[in-house]
């Protein structure tokens, strides 16, 4: 089978067009109205680039490519159309890992090409090949671990083990030494290259495994930019400009996004990556110990579904604080129903969205949009915090760390300094939770022991449905 060939200059022009479409596409993704169109433009750019590549005269056989596209297309389509909105972060992690794996393989095959031809690898090609393979491999295995943590296949807790730092350090030195040898040696050495690749894959696992489940969004965002950079590196190896431009765009935007996410949590990136944050904090410092003692002495106050319904029905204003617990229980539709019945009784209902609610920035907005909650009712942290003083009820559904006052008051707390929603300022605080288990950060929440706080235990979806029913009969 053979397809007609396009002249190289035409292909380069198509690549330029694709790059422009990617840039306009990302630009349009920054506004809710044009976002869908932006994604569509970018996908058109991708299709153009792929078709142009098919007609490249460098391509001698189509069998492998056709089979790969069919298999990959099927897997991608099925995965993307079946995944629940709540599982979006781990889905993005997997897609990201795929890209990283592809970049690592492309770089490795370039190396193999030199080896087979018996040619020495020029230093510049050597560097770009090794960078692409290293970053791609780290992104590949790192994304798989991130997926495992979010899916519950690997423990969400930060994994620490003896000699962790020395082991990581030795591995890092080994990778650097192997890279230096491969670049300087002046001849190809497939055996050393294989060890280098294996070390890079292992490094991705060790890089992500000590990071707690709550920090996975930041990690996925960072790995997203890694894959972008790995793609750009393959562009340098293959002298392909569309790869350089697109990869770099993603690398730069992903880095910025990672920074914005860390900023929302008020934590430096180094603390996220190397702090072993998700480990259960055992009364750090005297203040923490005293606080834990005080909490142990106090009990929490439970509230019934009926009482909750009465309090809500006779409130003037209610602020709903949705958290990941709501997402896991798929309670977004029930919550909208609750808001609807309350509004029909004249209650003012608003939603307070913390920047890191859910597991990715903006994740909660996606989930609530899925349940047809109007945009106008969603308020971000700065807009809603002054409102809590006037609110009758703060209804916290499956959120924990984002309302923990320790972030304001306890310098020994790992989340100290993170901006939180001021739920404790509302007249009543109703906390809907499955159990007293601590949140992602693994720390106690003194809000639950606040005299104004009432705990409503149960599955979020189930309990909210019962409350809806009870409100209707009030």
């Amino acid at each position, binding site marked *: 089978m053979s397809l007609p060939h396009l002249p190289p200059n035409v292909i380069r022009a198509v690549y330029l067009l694709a790059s422009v479409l990617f840039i306009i596409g990302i630009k349009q993704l920054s506004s809710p109205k044009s976002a869908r169109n932006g994604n569509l433009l970018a996908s058109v750019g991708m299709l153009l680039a792929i078709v142009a590549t098919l007609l490249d005269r460098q391509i001698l056989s189509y069998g492998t490519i056709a089979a790969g596209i069919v298999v990959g297309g099927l897997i991608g389509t099925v995965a993307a159309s079946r995944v629940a909105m709540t599982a979006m972060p781990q889905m993005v992690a997997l897609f990201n890992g795929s890209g990283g794996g592809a970049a690592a393989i492309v770089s490795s095959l370039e190396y193999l*090409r030199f080896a087979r031809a018996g040619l020495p690898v020029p230093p510049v090609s050597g560097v770009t090949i090794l960078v692409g393979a290293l970053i791609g491999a780290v992104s590949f295995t790192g994304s798989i671990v991130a997926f495992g943590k979010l899916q519950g296949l690997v423990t969400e807790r930060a994994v620490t083990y003896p000699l962790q730092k020395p082991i990581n350090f030795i591995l890092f030195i080994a990778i650097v030494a192997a890279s230096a040898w491969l670049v300087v040696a002046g001849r190809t050495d497939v055996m050393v290259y294989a060890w280098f690749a294996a070390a890079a894959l292992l490094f991705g696992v060790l890089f992500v495994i000590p990071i707690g489940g709550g920090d996975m969004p930041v990690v996925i965002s960072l790995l997203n930019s890694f894959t972008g950079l790995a793609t750009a590196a393959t562009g340098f190896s293959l002298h392909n400009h569309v790869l350089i431009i697109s990869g770099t765009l*993603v690398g730069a935007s992903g880095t910025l996004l990672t920074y914005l996410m860390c900023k929302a949590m008020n934590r430096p990136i180094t603390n996220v990556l190397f702090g072993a944050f998700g480990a259960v904090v055992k009364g750090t410092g005297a203040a923490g110990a005293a606080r834990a003692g005080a909490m142990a002495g106090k009990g929490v106050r439970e509230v019934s579904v009926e009482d909750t319904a009465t309090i809500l029905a006779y409130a003037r204003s209610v602020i709903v604080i949705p958290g990941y617990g709501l997402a896991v229980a798929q309670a977004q539709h029930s919550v909208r129903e609750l808001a609807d019945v309350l509004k029909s009784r004249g209650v003012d209902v608003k939603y307070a969205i913390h*920047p890191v609610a859910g597991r990715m920035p903006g994740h909660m907005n996606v989930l609530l949009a899925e349940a047809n909650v109007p945009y106008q009712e969603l308020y971000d942290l700065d807009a809603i915090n002054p409102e809590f003083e006037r609110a009758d009820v703060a209804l916290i559904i499956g959120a924990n760390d984002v309302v923990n006052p320790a972030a304001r008051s306890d310098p020994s707390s790992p989340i100290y300094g993170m901006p939180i929603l001021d739920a404790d300022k509302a007249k009543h605080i109703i906390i809907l939770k499955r159990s007293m288990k601590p949140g992602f950060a693994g720390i106690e929440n003194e809000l639950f022991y606040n005299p104004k706080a009432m705990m409503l235990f149960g599955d979020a979806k189930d309990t909210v449905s019962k409350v809806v029913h009870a409100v209707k009969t009030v």
Partner: protein
Amino acid sequence: MIEQLLTDLTIFVLAIFIGYEIISKVPVILHTPLMSGTNAIHGIVLVGAMLVAGTPEGPLVTALGFVAVVLGTINVVGGFLVTDRMLRMFAGKTPGGR
């Protein structure tokens, strides 16, 4: 060789600035679709995978090339579809926006 490298580096550096500029003003609500959308765009590595898979040099290269094309295609197809699914929920229900 050096000329080629400088051209590539020029493009690389300018793309960093564009990447930074075009996303610095995105509202938080769109961060998830944005992450997912840019995730799909680095699926362009599929082009590289096709170029190496299309020049078969023995079973090892063919096998690895096949895996690279599969992974790249998953990244592209899955990435764009999942982003569209998210964005469909935003569209159409925001008269005038916020």
